[in-house]
């Protein structure tokens, strides 16, 4: 488990990370969202042992990570602007990482490179942005670490490749309990891949929750009521977080257990009624509103 406790980091007096406490459990895909400047990259760089926290502690499997090769052996960091060795090819990169990460799986790396159709002996500097990201991800996956920190890594990957990466992650999670930590400013990029999401804002964590847990606690209903009296009767018993109306069609975001909500609305016999899945964005809107923030201003 990666654990950050009351972590503070300043750059030239500017507070980049402000008393952040977060736990990243093993075997999940952890999404870290936040606007530019929210502190995602700084937090990841601290978890990777690149930066030293000014205050607080960061541990990987209970060992402090900074200047601790034993702890760092379990972490692989892909920065938002990854570096590739001068004139290096994918094979050179594998050689270099192979010298550093004892568990680097060269065979699997070569297989995956082949699977994704990436040339092994061409200079990486000639690759497209997406190809470079794929190389980074494969290097990270094959390094054999427990944790893979990806900073804006999915930015620039096409949908097909995202699916491919997702399946690679899924396999690694299943087979050896890999824990990818994905930081992004774009919630939509994380939506279909994360199990747990932490929201960073102005250097602090606004919320950190399990996605499934969030999904089961909040729902979207579209319905058309016969009259206002019926509507009032239905709404009275529900914890409505958000209400939207187009003509007679009302869209409600409601907190609570799905079955209970459905039976309560159905019992009122509205003209039309349907339960819809919530997007991650909608879940966040409601969650941050509870915390007193306007999520649209935070992230969209």
């Amino acid at each position, binding site marked *: 488990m990666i654990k950050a406790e009351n972590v503070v980091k300043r750059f030239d007096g500017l507070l980049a990370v402000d008393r952040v406490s977060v736990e990243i459990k093993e075997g999940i895909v952890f999404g870290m969202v936040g606007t530019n400047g929210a502190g995602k990259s700084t937090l990841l760089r601290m978890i990777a042992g690149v930066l030293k926290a000014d205050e607080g502690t960061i541990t990987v499997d209970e060992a402090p990570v900074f200047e601790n090769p034993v702890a760092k052996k379990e*972490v692989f960091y892909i920065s938002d602007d990854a570096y590739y060795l001068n004139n290096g090819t994918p094979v050179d990169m594998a050689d270099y990482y192979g010298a*550093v990460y004892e568990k680097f799986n060269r065979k699997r790396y070569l297989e995956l490179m082949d699977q994704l159709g990436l040339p092994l002996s061409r200079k990486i500097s000639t690759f497209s942005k997406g190809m470079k990201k794929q190389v980074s991800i494969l290097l990270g996956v094959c390094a054999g670490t427990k944790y893979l920190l990806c900073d804006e890594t999915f930015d620039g990957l096409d949908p097909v490749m995202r699916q491919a990466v997702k399946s690679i992650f899924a396999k690694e999670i299943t087979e050896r309990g890999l824990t990818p930590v994905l930081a992004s400013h774009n919630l939509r990029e994380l939506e279909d891949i994360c199990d747990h999401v932490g929201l960073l804002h102005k250097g602090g964590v606004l919320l950190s929750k399990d996605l499934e847990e969030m999904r089961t606690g909040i729902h979207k209903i579209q319905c058309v009521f016969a009259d206002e009296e019926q509507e009032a009767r239905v709404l009275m018993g529900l914890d409505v977080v958000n209400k939207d109306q187009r003509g007679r069609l009302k869209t409600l975001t409601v907190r609570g257990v799905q079955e209970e909500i459905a039976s309560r609305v159905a019992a009122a016999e509205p003209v039309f009624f349907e339960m819809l899945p919530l997007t991650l964005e909608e879940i966040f809107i409601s969650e941050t509103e509870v915390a007193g923030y306007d999520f649209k201003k935070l992230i969209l």
Partner: protein
Amino acid sequence: MTSRSSFFKLLKEDLRQRLWTVVLAAIVFILPVPIYIAMEISGSRGFSTGMLDNFARRLAEPMAYSSIWLVLVTIVGALICAVSGFGYLFSKKKVDFFHSLPVKRETLFAVRYINGVLIYLVPYLAMVLVSILIITFTGNMKAVVFTIVAKGLAVHLLGYLAIYTTCILCVTFVGNIVVFFAVCGWVFGITPVTLLVFNWFEERFFNTYSYLGDSFNEWLYSLRFLFPGYFYIYSVDASGLAVTRASLLLQELAFVVVLTAITLLVYRVRPSDGAGKAIAFPVLKPVIRISVELLAGALMGMMFSEMADRSYGVPGWMVFGAILGVVLSHMLIQSIFHFDIRKCFAGKWSMGACAVVTIAFVLVMRYDTFGYDKYLPKERKIESVALEMTGFDRYRNNYKYTGSYIEWTNELDEMELTNIKEVYPYLESLVADNEAYWELRENGQTAESMRVNVAYRLENGKTVYREYRANGIREDLFAPIFESQEYKEVHYSDVYSIPASFVNSMTAAHAMNVLHMNLSTAEGEELMSILRRELSAQTLKEKLNTLPVAVLNMTVIDRTPLYDSDGMPIESTYEYTTELPIYASFTETLRFMKERGFTASGAYEWTGEERMRVELPEIAIKDPEQYVGEVYSYDASVELTEYVLAGDSKLIESQIAYPEDWDYGYNVIPVDPEDFERLYALCTWEDLYHYGKPGFDRYEYYRVYVEVPQDGYNMYETYRFIIPADADLSFLYAN
């Protein structure tokens, strides 16, 4: 922990990344030197065996410690290897890459540091190997080659390590390549440049500043551990240093070890977010900025002073220059630190404080607030004193036999007057004379003076040098010093130190009366023994108030074998002539010369073949009006305000009327042969004046030239004589 195998893997991978530096090093080392050696060999066939040692030495020269090529390669190589190894610290993405690896910073440092050394050392050794093979297989190998190569390797490798490590330290200080070069300049230059500027102020404003003290080199040596290039520069050229090259190299080794430890420490604590910034450690910013501002202020203050304020008036331009220097350097540095020209005035108060400090400094130096010129150590704190008076005995040669060879020495280095009680009153008079002299000068008046250099050797081991302007010799105060054996043994160091057995011949002379003869060893020893005794007994009174009666030249030949710095013998025969004035009190010496046929007088028998002429005296005048009608300017249009001819005006007129075909100058009067003897009776041989009246100006006298024909040649030997300007020479125009 990094295992040994992964350490070597990292070494290998790092080296792969720096392949270009490896190739470059191989080219600059392995190609030029062996090619040069091969060309030298092919171009110089047919040497005799005796010349082979020197030839082998010449072949090894490109690998010697003094090889300019290796010095250049070492300095540039150190800079390149430091940047290629640690330049990743300038890039955020490279820092993220390398610092996220499960490798300790120490290991990363070691990998890169060692590779930087190997990139230099391996091609260097390859160059040595190839060169030695070429020299050996062409039959030119001598043992001296190995000595030269080993010394060269020690000097250059240590020099490389010192510069390379310093450059790495500079890399860790900054986050940008351009700022790196600026900080390198600061680290390498701040100490010597500060000392140079301070030295400049001393020279300019302290009247008693002595160049003989060489305070710059002395300070630089004291601060050598703050000047990373010191050891390398001085181990390449150790001439003039008090320490040996081996001692310098040992100090350099200690310097490298400590510097490497400091660099590793700084590298470890360097924040990773320093990449891209001007300076990675905020604490360094004020240190760099303030030191540069103070230095730039002082430097520009001095430059403006030199350009526009050479008088001793109010130093307005100097103050202006100081302020300008501080402001401009502040603007430049702040713009660089912030990468923003708009921030050039950030920290105005600090800039103001620097300007105030700089102005205070330049004014303190200008007005000698701390009394540099009045410096006189307490009597009890002086261990010994050395004196050197310019103008006194100015024709003395300060040669000394060291025990193995004869060398030029400096009285200030050699002399140790330990009777401070006797010397102190003279030193006090020097300080007072000096102050009076410069007071007159500052008031626009001229003053006569002679320079006296003094070296105070203090109890604390320091030596302080001063140059005073003395008002004459001060016979009463200087006599006990001159008459002491400590003074004489250094002042006449050649006579006292050169072994008597080296004396080969002597020449005794008084004008045209000359005796030259070879001396046997016994004669040489007798002469030296007499001379030493009589020199020791001579009083200052005689020296200052009487003229010598003859001049004695002794030729000494030193055949002691010499060895070069590599221990190889050098064939040498050193011939040296020492010259001494002989005074009337040197009775034993005069007896010695008389026994061999020389009498100390200028008596001469005229043959009628000689020629004689007189040159008129000149006097420097302060008020030309005073001399109108009495004397004649020899070049009225140009020099009337400086010199006029003095002496008998009728003599001058007679000269002016002289036939035009006379090819001497218009102030020269040819003498009729019938006047020779009468004129010669008034003459004193000018050489005796040189010794007996130090500082005399021959142009204030009648100068008489006697030209004596040389046997078998249509040439004349000229002898110069002096007659006082007030002498009656009317007989020259009586006819």
